[in-house]
């Protein structure tokens, strides 16, 4: 009898001939996640098995953050021929549990003498005879006792849901515009979950924002890298551009023009990073720069696709998500944010593209300033 963790994957099952590619990528992500706890992962029979870990609970926690993982089950692996031993082990797993249960047998090894309904009945009967306090409920049981008959028998009761999605790296690379707010980390999480590897671009406006606000953003990026396994962050000095916009462009257009420069710079960095798309945390109508017309004006300055996974989300839904992925508390720290520094009193909400371009033309030397900002960006690898 051996204790191990069984990792099950979801969407990869739907893949056809290239399924091995996805499986192997997921395996390497799982190996990375359990390395710190001494765990060793192998792919076998459409499952990933993790053995040899020193700290099972931490290992489980790390695995539930690996994109592509459907669920994580601490399990017992044992010889399948002695059914009595399986029953005894199952009884032990049910220890301390109360209420109703159901046995779910899966017989992958079709040579096994008992079929699944028979295992269900025999094992269920055995448990009931030893634990008269438990009851069977086959529709909505409190506990599911899983028995899988493969090369060995695998028994487990607890199932921790994984994040789902696809293994990071299976779907290209994108640059996330990361502020200190609540939305952008969630947007990054959602796209990374689809297998996209991330780099982040943060705009820093010293002295309007200080070291603490930068550290806050890096902390958010660290939380995200817990899911997507490392991330490069570009901290772009943005003060000169912001001041120039503020000085030379009409007040009601300043935020929109600022957003357009952020997109341009992010695309420049994306090119350097071989990232194929930009990601932002915008949602329709949340603020003036996120109305449909404003989004059209920001989109107009970049060539590649811009992913906005939160586009149809309410703020409260985004907050729920941020709390779930663990970025909310950091996002709520009070330091000034580059986006809020020069907020105009009455920003334009229905901008026209031609008017915006005209307003923007009043800026001197914008190309030079942008190139400088990209050049001088601080690069931090997390």
């Amino acid at each position, binding site marked *: 009898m051996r204790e191990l963790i069984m990792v099950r994957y979801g969407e990869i099952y739907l893949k056809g001939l290239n399924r091995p590619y996805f499986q192997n990528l997921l395996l390497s992500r799982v190996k990375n996640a359990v390395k710190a706890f001494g765990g060793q992962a192998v792919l076998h029979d459409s499952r990933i098995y993790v053995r040899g870990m020193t700290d099972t609970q931490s290992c489980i926690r790390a695995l539930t953050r690996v994109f592509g993982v459907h669920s994580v089950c601490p399990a017992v692996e044992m010889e399948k021929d002695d059914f009595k031993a399986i029953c005894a082990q199952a009884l032990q797993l049910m220890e301390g549990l109360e209420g109703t249960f159901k046995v779910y047998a899966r017989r992958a090894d079709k040579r096994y003498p008992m079929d699944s309904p028979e295992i269900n009945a025999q094992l269920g009967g055995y448990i009931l005879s030893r634990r008269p306090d438990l009851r069977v409920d086959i529709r909505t049981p409190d506990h599911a006792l899983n028995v899988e008959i493969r090369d060995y028998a695998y028994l487990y009761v607890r199932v921790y849901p994984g994040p789902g999605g696809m293994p990071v790296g299976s779907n290209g690379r994108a640059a996330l515009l990361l502020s200190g707010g609540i939305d952008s980390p969630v947007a990054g999480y959602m796209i990374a979950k689809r297998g996209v590897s991330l780099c982040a671009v943060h705009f820093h406006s010293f002295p309007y*924002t200080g070291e603490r606000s930068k550290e806050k953003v890096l902390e958010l990026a660290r939380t995200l890298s817990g899911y997507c396994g490392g991330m490069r962050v570009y901290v772009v000095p943005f003060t000169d551009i*912001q001041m120039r916009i503020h000085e030379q462009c009409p007040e009601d257009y300043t935020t929109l023009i600022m957003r357009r420069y952020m997109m341009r710079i992010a695309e420049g960095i994306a090119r350097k990073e071989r990232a194929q798309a930009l990601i932002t945390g915008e949602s329709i109508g949340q603020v003036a720069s996120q109305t449909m017309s404003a989004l059209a004006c920001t989109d107009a300055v970049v060539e590649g696709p811009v992913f906005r996974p939160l586009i149809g989300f309410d703020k409260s839904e985004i907050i729920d998500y941020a709390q779930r992925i663990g970025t909310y508390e950091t996002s709520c720290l009070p330091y*000034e944010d580059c986006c809020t520094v020069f907020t105009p009193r009455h920003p334009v909400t229905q901008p026209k593209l031609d008017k915006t371009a005209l307003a923007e033309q009043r800026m001197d030397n914008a190309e030079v300033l942008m190139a400088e900002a990209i050049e001088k960006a601080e690069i931090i690898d997390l």
Partner: protein
Amino acid sequence: MDIYLDNSATTRPADSVIKAMRSAMTDGYFNPSALYAPALAVEKHMNGCRDQIRQALHANGGQVIFTSGGTEADNLAILGPLKDRGPGGRVLYSAGEHPAVIESCKALSAYGYEVAEIALQPDGVMDIDHFEAQLTGDTRLICVMQVNNETGAIQPLAQVSKLRDEKCPDALLHVDGVQGFLRHDCPVQAWGIDSYALSAHKIHGPKGIGALWVGERVRLSPILYGGGQEKGLRSGTENTPGIAGLSAAIASYPKEHAMRTLKLRLLERLVAGIPTLHVNGPVPDSADAADHILNLSFAPVRAETMLHALEAESMYAGNGSACSSRKQRHSHVLTAMGVPRERMESALRFSLSPDVDTAQIDAAAQAIIRNYDMLKIFKRR
């Protein structure tokens, strides 16, 4: 070189302090409760520091209890005499108190006490009429700080004590002296003060050590339990290096200094360059204003922006109270004074130490004006 004008947040430990602490760790590391002679020497040194504190407070007698700092001293002074001593009564604190005092007072409401706040005047000094109105016969404790940490407003302790004697002589008077100790005189017995909290790191001593002086009539119970050190009032092996540092800090704190002159010089230069400048607190050259603290609003430039701009030139000032800059809220002190929002958001605190010199003040004034002129154009509209 750095120009450090955030001495109300903390001060740089004096060289003599570091030396004394080093020696307390290398040579005098003994547990003062042990029976052998070197331990006794440590204990004597500790008692010497208690005498220094009494002397600084002009106290004949009373106990000095060492704590982990000002916060613990305030907690002990407030919870110690009252927490298990029903049947309740009133606890008053001035609205400008440090959170260590306010939160300790509020904690007393769980023990059946009625907790009430005394209003501040627009200059940050407590409203003595409001205090008189609040002072009922069943008042058990009054907490008023010596010097406000954000505005430098010196509180009218002698008057508070006199009113207390007239209307409610049994009420205890606790004074948080963290920002006042050594910088402004506080004769505790002459002013009828019952307890006085102080902290070492505001007077060029180390962090992690403070003390509470308590007068004869206070019946104190401990808030920490353990080995019974400090006559059972503060268990835990004494922080002897910290106490050695505190002792050296008191000994080396200059009797004479130019902080008031320099503070006024800073203000004068700044007003000349920034006519719209606003002082938050008492008139700086009045008797109500502390020598070392100046709270100024640079509207429309936000405090955080000015602070970072100065930081880029290695000049450091405070934004409100350092204890709360992690929380997003306006200063409770400036709010209680009725300071309008824009002034609050642009308020910086300059706090001096005896180390600050004229050249630093002039350089700071110059840098502030230069940054102000640049930053005021790029204000949030």
